């Protein structure tokens, strides 16, 4: 059995609303470093990737995440995820 973090997998990231605007991308495919186990880990790594990311996640508690189109928490494991989304609190309805 191989460990999930042994070989960094490529991951689709999608961004919405002001998260999308601050990062300047609607989506991208990334390969996070080994040891990126949770949403919080992923955010920490994304913040090192430039000013837009830093601005988008300046208050990480505000940004929501979804793994494969299901709401996720900062501590949720991203193992096996195909698509991870980041967005502000929802304002639909």
């Amino acid at each position, binding site marked *: 059995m191989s460990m999930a973090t042994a070989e960094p997998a490529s991951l689709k990231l*999608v961004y*919405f*609303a*002001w998260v999308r605007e601050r990062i300047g991308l609607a989506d991208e495919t990334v390969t996070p470093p080994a040891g990126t186990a949770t949403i919080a880990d992923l955010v920490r790594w994304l913040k090192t990737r430039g000013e837009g990311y830093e601005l988008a996640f300046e208050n990480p508690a505000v940004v929501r995440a*979804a793994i494969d*189109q*299901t*709401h996720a928490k900062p501590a949720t494991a991203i193992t096996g995820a195909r698509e991870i*989304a980041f*967005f*502000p*609190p*929802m*304002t*639909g*309805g």
Partner: protein
Amino acid sequence: MTPLVRIQREDFDIGAEIAALTAGDPSIGAVVSFAGLCRDESGRLAALELEHYPGMAEAEIGRVAGEAAGRWPLAGLLAIHRFGLIKPGEQIVLVIAASSHRREAFEAADFLMDYLKTRAPFWKREHLADGTLGGWVEAKDDDDKAAERWS
């Protein structure tokens, strides 16, 4: 009973949706509809632009509608949420719940709306009457509190 969920750019016709949802089921005694409309905010607003997360929007509303269907004995449940540019007076969202008795129809519609507000991946941005682009609408604590009533 499988809830119906539609995410669409087009407007909807409340009367036609109620008729379609209740047709041919004489066990239905109560139908509650909720329609959310775009307000002009005392003339400040020219339009709301609704961005959404395609795929997740359907999936998430479907999950919450399924929870409502498990919680109340419903004969029909429908949710429609529009995206794109919506002007004041136009319709944004529709929920219809049909059941034998009124209590469950009211509660299911109320529940589904509260969860739509806080869990459905939609984001509103203001277009202002002066022609400029306004900011993203901020989520309301009140909406979170409303959703917590059901847990």
